[in-house]
């Protein structure tokens, strides 16, 4: 009896230790992953000229909102320089507009066309289907840097440099990953529903729009979100093609803002403020759709 209770107690104590250890680990992991974001916030609330001499202080150095004013263009170059910023400006609203257009159009296009392709690869039977699909998958192995130059020259010869169309085109139609992702899902759809629809006289277009797409809403939403975030963060292609202010996206704008005179230190607080503000929309998107994504992944897992 006593031995049994002491064994239980021992086990529960051991469990408690284990649990405490696990909690400590979780807390540590959370702290480690949150700290960089806190540091971004802290830097953005500091005065740039006071940052370097207060490197080890956890609180903002010389607290002020000047960096945010700089980002939204509410500060003159003179004021900015007085706070240790530079004469560089970020046309935040224009870059934001460009990023939203760039991400939204490419996401809409890529998801729509990829789902059509995925439909063809999963629900239609045609000769050489698997071979073509294999070829498609193989293109996933080609690093994007290899296609950057030919793409660039193509866009240049089409006269589309520094246009939104030129920036959007390479992403607009499809990506192998999206097709692969959706095909796996479409493959698992029951044939009976489709056959029933066919008996009712529905053609492929109708089946695709009225049966397959609605049924795949969750994975499509997941894919759209993933694509959108990827596009939001895209840097290299927009840098190559979208040089002018009117098509420059946020990532490129921030990159330009970061590096100024050679060997000079960047306007860290302005950069961090801009980074934070430009990450916000994606964060909000996650808050709004996060649950849906988890559900859809869970759903597709069960299937």
């Amino acid at each position, binding site marked *: 009896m006593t031995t049994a209770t002491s064994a239980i107690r021992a086990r529960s104590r051991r469990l408690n230790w284990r649990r405490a250890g696990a909690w400590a680990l979780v807390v540590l992991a959370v702290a480690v992953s949150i700290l960089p974001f806190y540091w971004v916030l802290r830097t953005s609330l500091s005065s740039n000229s006071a940052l370097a001499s207060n490197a080890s202080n956890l609180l903002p150095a010389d607290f002020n909102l000047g960096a945010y004013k700089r980002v939204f263009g509410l500060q003159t*170059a003179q004021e900015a320089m007085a706070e240790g910023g530079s004469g560089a400006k970020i046309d935040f609203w224009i870059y934001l507009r460009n990023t939203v257009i760039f991400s939204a159009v490419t996401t809409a296009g890529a998801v729509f066309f990829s789902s059509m392709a995925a439909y063809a690869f999963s629900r239609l039977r045609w000769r050489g289907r698997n071979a073509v699909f294999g070829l498609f998958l193989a293109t996933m192995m080609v690093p994007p840097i290899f296609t950057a130059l030919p793409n660039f020259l193509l866009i240049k010869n089409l006269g589309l440099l520094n246009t939104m169309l030129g920036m959007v085109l390479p992403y607009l139609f499809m990506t192998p990953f999206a097709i692969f992702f959706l095909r796996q899902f479409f493959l698992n759809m029951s044939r009976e529903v489709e056959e029933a629809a066919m008996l009712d006289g529905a053609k492929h277009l109708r089946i695709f729009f009225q049966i397959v797409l609605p049924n795949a809403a969750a994975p499509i939403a997941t894919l759209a979100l993933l694509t959108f975030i990827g596009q939001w963060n895209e840097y290299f292609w927009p840098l190559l093609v979208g040089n002018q202010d009117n098509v420059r996206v946020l990532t490129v704008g921030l990159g330009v803002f970061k590096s100024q005179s050679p060997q000079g230190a960047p306007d860290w607080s302005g950069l961090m403020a801009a980074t934070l503000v430009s990450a916000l929309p994606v964060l909000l998107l996650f808050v709004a759709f996060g649950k849906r994504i988890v559900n859809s992944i869970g759903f597709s897992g069960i299937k």
Partner: protein
Amino acid sequence: MNKKATGKKAVGALAAAAAAVLALSACGSGGGASGGSGEEAKGEISYWLWDANQLPAYQQCADDFHTANPDITVKITQRGWDDYWSTLTNGFVAGTAPDVFTDHLAKYPEFAKTGQLLALDDAVANDHVDVTQYNKGLADLWVGEDGKRYGLPKDWDTISLFYNKKLTADAGVSDDQMKALSWNPQDGGTYEKAIAHLTVDKNGKRGDEPGFDKTKVAVYGIGLNNSGSGQGQTEWSYLTGTTGWTHTDKNPWGTHFNYDDPKFQESIAWFASLSEKGYMPKLETTVGASMADTFAAGKSVINAHGSWMIGQYTGYKGVDVGIAPTPTGPDGKRASMFNGLADSVWAGTKKPATAVKFAEYLGSAACQDVVASKAVVFPAIKSSSDKAEAAFKAKGVDVTPFTQQVKEDTTFLFPIADKAAKVDGIMKPAMDAVVSGKQPASSLSQANDQVNSLFNK
């Protein structure tokens, strides 16, 4: 020049053009315009620069220019140094390069050679631009190997020592001592003594005291930017320049480099030894860090840096910064690399007359006085230079350590040579290896052979 690349034979053309982009040369729409005879100066042109700190000054120049020439508008784009050159060469190929842009001595020889720059000789002659108004030597730097002028000087820079006044005072090193340092490659002279004394380890022991722990340094006597590659502009050229050593056989357009000279290797060996002794940060710890920020954080006491950094160094809150001239060397004199930027006109510009007119305005006293008044850099024109010095003084910064090199004629010109990118490709890793202590300075002889073989072909 090579319009074939954009022809119709798709595959071949793509490959050819791709190679052209990679080589950052050869192709593009250059060579078309020549002086803009008969064309009227009007319309909108674009101007690029990389230094954000100078943007307000140049914006004002553009506005003033527009007021004087209502038919012309100038659109200024600032882009950071890191992307500047790739976007520019990309623009040459794509036909989207700016009409006028800030150009660098290390870059323009290749641009000129591939026909991307408009020669300004006719304009200079027709519009009577006085090239003697610039500080000595600056205008000549922009005359290419072919004898044509490819830029009008906008500013110049020299090197000095920025130092943390509080930390030097703590160590008992006076401002006068800082201004009178001397150096030699054997024992480092009073310069090394000062650096050693200013270095403090975590136990508070100074670099020249017994028991100094070089593995646990809290404050370095001198900061390190990087290894300096083949030029060492802010890193070591102010030292090697006092030994009688020169980068190339002649400057500009040298075709033989002297990295195998014992005088040079001796100096570099001394420079690398500072890290070894714990007086200077290890090279690997400087990657991705700003030397100026490290300085402001109190981690280094002396930083040798260029005059374009004055605003940065004096802008830190709570850091009292002194500026001292570079130390005198074995020849008894100081030395500083003298570098100058200029504005160049792109050969592919659709409005050459307008572009040239604006470039001339940027090179004129009217614009350079505006730049001077902002106290960010030293304009190329002598009278404007003096105004900048006064403007700095009004801001409470004594910049004589920078200007005295010019006045005392102790400057030497930035080494201008063809194939700069390739030379850099060889010298950067070679210098990195030496400064990080992985290779002896004698290994530079081999790198020198490689560099020189570039010019034998």
